[in-house]
């Protein structure tokens, strides 16, 4: 009988070990609601390159490139609902002998111009022209991007159509990319 009591005591001891002895600090699993995911996504947008011959071929004081392209990257519902802020980066390089003007129009679905970026590019630039356009609080309205459904890109020659640059392989290059912050959660 004494042995049985001893055994029961041991069993009880173990029961206590796993019920009373084990404890935990207060946990709050509702904190998961506060999780915020705001990644910054970077991507190339548009790259335009033209040699000097193509500019000359278009004639003096004329457009050597004009194109409207559908561009629904920002107004996709998933993107537009989560876009917090962003910057569109532009770089221009012109080693031709022409003074050029590059214009980018942001178009709404019904063709309205929402915003315009104009770049007047001197001939034979040795430095890369950069422009960072910020959209969001304190910058341009995010609505421009959210409602953009197309881009109209035009390149205009503001010079003659005969001069030829002495630079090796002269060309004009427009680079653009975007860095945007999204709120995924």
């Amino acid at each position, binding site marked *: 009988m004494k042995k*049985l009591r001893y055994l029961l005591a041991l069993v009880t001891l*173990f029961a206590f070990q796993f019920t009373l002895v084990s404890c935990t*600090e207060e946990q709050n699993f509702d904190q998961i609601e506060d999780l915020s995911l705001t990644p910054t996504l970077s991507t*190339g947008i*548009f790259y335009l390159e033209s040699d000097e011959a193509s500019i000359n071929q278009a004639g003096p004081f004329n457009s050597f490139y004009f194109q409207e*392209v*559908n561009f629904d990257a920002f107004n996709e519902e998933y993107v537009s609902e989560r876009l917090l802020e962003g910057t569109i980066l532009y*770089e221009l390089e012109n080693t031709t002998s022409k003074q050029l003007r590059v214009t980018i129009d942001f178009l709404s679905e019904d063709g309205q111009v929402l915003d315009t970026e104009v770049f007047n590019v001197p001939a034979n630039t040795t430095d890369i022209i950069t422009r960072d356009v910020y959209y969001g609080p304190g910058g341009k309205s995010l609505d421009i991007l959210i409602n953009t459904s197309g881009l109209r890109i035009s390149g205009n020659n503001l010079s003659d159509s005969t001069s030829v640059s002495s630079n090796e392989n002269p060309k004009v290059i427009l680079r653009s990319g975007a860095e945007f*912050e999204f709120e995924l959660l």
Partner: protein
Amino acid sequence: MRMVCKIVLAVVFCCATTFAQNKQLLYDFYEIPQSLMINPGVKTSHKWHVGVPVISGISVQGASSGVTVNDLFANDGVDFTTKVQERLLDVMGNRDDFGSTSQIEGFTIGFRGKNRPDDYYSFGMYGEMDVISYWPKDLAILAFEGNGGNNIGRSFDLGDLNVRGEMVNVFHFGINRKVNPDLTMGIRGKLYSSIFQFQSIKNSGSFVTTQGTNNIFESAINADMQLQTAGVKGFYDIVDEDSGTTRKDVERLFSKRVLLGGNLGLGLDFGFSHQLNQQTTITGSILDLGFIYNAKDVWNYTFSGSTVTDGISVILPDDINNLDNDLWQDLIDEIDEALPHGENQEAYISWRPLKLYGSIRYDFGEGGNPLSDNCGCAVNPGGGINRDYYRNSLGGQLFMIKRPKGIQPALTGFYQRKLGRAITLKATYTMDKYSYTNVGLGTSLQMGPVNFYVLADNLLSYSNIADSHYASLQFGFNIISWNDN
């Protein structure tokens, strides 16, 4: 997205609060019949045993080699996103994992051969669920930080996605033979009845965004990824259909799969115990050397290919006549084409997580049962050295398990003490990737024919179980007939 993230975190931490595979307390604890399940060649001294159905062996174990539940969910007033960033993203590597295994014994029976008293036969059925997910470090950073900012130039490893899980019912039959007074060997055959299985363990590829050679940014992706599932879609379809009989349909499908109605597999366990001298014993076992052939209800998802993009590109004069104004959609279509994703129903083989145990044990401290009073000797008149003669045992154990990213070892030192014939205690200290402070304690109580055992790991963490990297509990009831009762 929020729901997906919640589910992922919930699964991760449910896993972290259940169970891992090492059963160092049970190993070579031959007073407990379930020790046969992790070494078919363990010393057996019973005449027969019957596990009390369903409660003869229950084990739950959870492991997380990186973050703990408390690290993230403690009510400490720290912003949750900050905790995730500092305690999860900044700390955990892609070899850290969340592991979980739970096991429940349906029934187990063992008996000594009438004509061959050297043989002890055992058979039964148990269910097991095993899930392991490695921390997908690069994918998590991509989701939290994106590919921009400081991550320009960083290559995100798509192979970080590595997860495997299964639920299986196991029917088994084993023979344990005392080959000679010093050597006992055993083998166990297993028939696996898979309830479901999924694995995504051979992924490779990368995603990187760099300063472009043409445009400002250039993104390159190459991927060879696959998620294989068997038995999952059947359950998913029932739940998705939501016909009003969902619960019954799930139970019916579950029962069918438990009773060999799903994918089947075969496996073997081997083990031995060899007494080097009167006081020293070495043991070893290999478990779950087997596979499941998944051919039914298979649904695999694939994603492979490679592409580089820097956005819409127009180069004059080459594109002067290209008046297509759908350049953006063309770009999306090109990327889609370069990165085909698909589904297939191809059968596949899934390997069981192979486990290996080894131990050396030194018995000392005379004062136990006399040499002639050997429980095993009564059925083995040839006799042998009586391990029960010694009260104390000291030794070391090695455990290794094959995981998707390699072998995972654990080293254990143990001390075992018998208190009379009714009580045996075992204390262990284990080092593995989950913990360097894992102290475990187990006991086997023999009350007449009734055997009760309880084994618990990582006791030092019990003051705050949520802060534990590892927790394990096993217990069960058996009816044992010794040779003299």
